[in-house]
């Protein structure tokens, strides 16, 4: 269970992160009191449906939330000794792309269509390490080879539109890893790719992690992806963490009604021809600060007090916990769901 926590101090420690966006209809509270740790050499998955605040969480760490309309209201994110949320933009720029890299959801739009692959690929080296162009070029070729792109020197002269989607995501990976960062943030890296390519990219992430010992923060809405590569999981809903634990525990014995409801609705768990189970209702409107458990309205186990008491994440050990007080008190036991299945939320 405590795979890493006993041995090491966290590489990244996020405490009580709150992010909101000013919109025309009012302030949207996108991330509410999110805390988690990431240890060196682990892959932490953040799962949640669209709008659950998982991407916003990671963008705030990178300082990529457009402000306005976005605003980080409070919180801290210690990366090594630096608080990413408090440090100056100059310091943050030095960390971005050097110590923390990011790959994005859509490789079609995330590469600059007006630039050849080469200059884009070596940009982190040129910015952070001032590597001479020739040497950077050599490194770029090695980086492309290491993500499984053949004929690298040819690719360097090509434009993004000449490459396939999977190839572009590989280029993104090579670009993110070229400075050998300690932390790789992957924002739904496989969502825009077809299934066979998805598996290759995931394999690549795992392989690179093992080779370089980098930590990975993997954002996804795909429980199958989580099951495949993550060591630990954070389940987010309506801008909060509802449950956290090792991948095994989350799948085998979920400790929050939301997690177990998610798993019941996995298509892989249904017999052929059977109606798919869904979670009734909609995620709550984030326009006003929530009172009580955000999942209360859709929960099978709700009692009146659920809408009143704030469901804070109760940690049972340093990185395993649930936000459901009823589960914590042992009032309800969620029916055990067997491991297996592979699908999206």
């Amino acid at each position, binding site marked *: 269970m405590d795979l890493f926590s006993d041995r090491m101090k966290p590489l990244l420690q996020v405490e009580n992160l709150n992010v909101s966006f000013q919109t025309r209809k009012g302030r949207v509270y996108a991330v509410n009191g999110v805390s988690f740790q990431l240890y060196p050499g682990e892959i932490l998955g953040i799962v949640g449906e669209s709008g659950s605040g998982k991407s916003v969480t990671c963008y705030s760490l*990178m300082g*990529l939330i457009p402000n306005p309309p976005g605003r980080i209201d409070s919180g801290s994110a210690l990366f090594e000794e630096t608080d990413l949320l408090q440090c100056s933009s100059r310091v943050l720029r030095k960390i971005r*792309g050097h110590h923390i890299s990011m790959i994005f959801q859509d490789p079609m739009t995330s*590469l600059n*269509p007006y630039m050849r692959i080469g200059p884009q690929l070596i940009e*982190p080296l040129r*910015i*952070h390490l001032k590597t001479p162009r020739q040497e950077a070029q050599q490194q770029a070729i090695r980086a492309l080879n290491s993500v499984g792109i053949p004929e690298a020197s040819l690719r360097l002269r090509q434009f993004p539109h000449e490459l396939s989607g999977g190839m572009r995501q590989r280029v993104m990976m090579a670009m993110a890893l070229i400075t050998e960062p300690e932390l790789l943030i992957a924002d739904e890296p496989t969502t825009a790719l077809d299934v066979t390519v998805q598996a290759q990219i995931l394999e690549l992430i795992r392989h690179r992690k093992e080779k370089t010992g980098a930590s990975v923060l993997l954002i996804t809405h795909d429980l199958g992806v989580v099951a495949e590569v993550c060591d630990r999981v954070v389940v987010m809903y309506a801008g909060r963490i509802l449950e956290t634990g090792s991948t095994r525990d989350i799948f085998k014995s979920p400790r929050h009604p939301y997690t177990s409801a998610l798993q019941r609705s996995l298509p892989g768990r249904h017999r052929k021809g059977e109606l798919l189970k869904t979670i009734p209702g909609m995620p709550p409107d984030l326009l006003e600060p929530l009172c009580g458990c955000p999942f209360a309205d859709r929960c099978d186990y709700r009692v009146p007090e659920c809408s009143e008491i704030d469901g804070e994440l109760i940690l049972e050990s340093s990185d395993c916990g649930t936000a459901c007080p009823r589960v914590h008190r042992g009032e309800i036991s969620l029916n055990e769901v067997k491991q297996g299945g592979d699908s999206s939320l």
Partner: protein
Amino acid sequence: MIRYICKRLLEAIPVLLIVATLTFFLTRIAPGGPFDQERNLPPEIEKQLNQYYGFDQSLYKQYFDYLSKLIRGDLGPSFKYSGWTVNEIIAGALPVSAELGAYALLVAVGVGVSAGMCAALFPNRFGDHLPMAFAMMGICLPTFVLGPLLILVFSLTLGWFNASGWIYPEDRVLPALTLGFYYAAYIARLTRGGILEMMTQDFIRTARAKGAGEFRVLVCHAARGGLVPVISFMGPAMAGLVTGSFVVETIFQIPGLGQYFVNAAFNRDYTMVLGTVLFYATFIVFFNLVVDLVLVWLNPAESFESKPAAL
């Protein structure tokens, strides 16, 4: 690419033919003629003139005569400036207009692009509002207001430049500013819009995630795509600048092509009108081709084959 250029040049021929035909017949439909003056000419002189210039022939004969000369590059004699051919007049006036246009273009691109970039770098802040206020002024202020204003301030009050003329190098400054300012204003607005649009793209976020500073993001990543609307605007703008601006040339007494262009229409100087219009059209076709080539170079995803031939 060579094929593309050849194709575009061939396409220009029917365009120019249509322009020539329309201009030829439209000028003839317009009432009056080149020899109409306040005092009527004696009939025998008018008859002789008509005969000399071929006006006694049928309109179609004149048209085909003109075309056959045109193919040989002969734009015919001017009716107003007797003893001069249109070719000679254009050859004499074009270098002046082109020089003025080149300076104005420098002003327009230099000032416009940097003002637009500054505005895009500080959206909705002072660094945006100041250049954009100037740009709005530039678009609203006609050259016949700006020109005299500049003369008033810089030549009459400060005495830095001559009020008019085209003799000394410093004579180029005020006309170039006057002519360039309007285009600079337009370019500034196009630059700002184009770059701000680029700034919301995903690849800009990637660049930031790589640790690129704002300046690097702007110059290396946003500028190339963001300047596409500016480049598109440059085609007609360059043609307009190089073939001369009647207003600016009149204000500053510059012997450029713009004056001839407008006066030819007033004088019913048929060949002169045709000559200048065709010349202008050729420039537009040519600069648009150049612009399209630059656009393809700027945007590699666009290929020569898929590009519609915009004229």
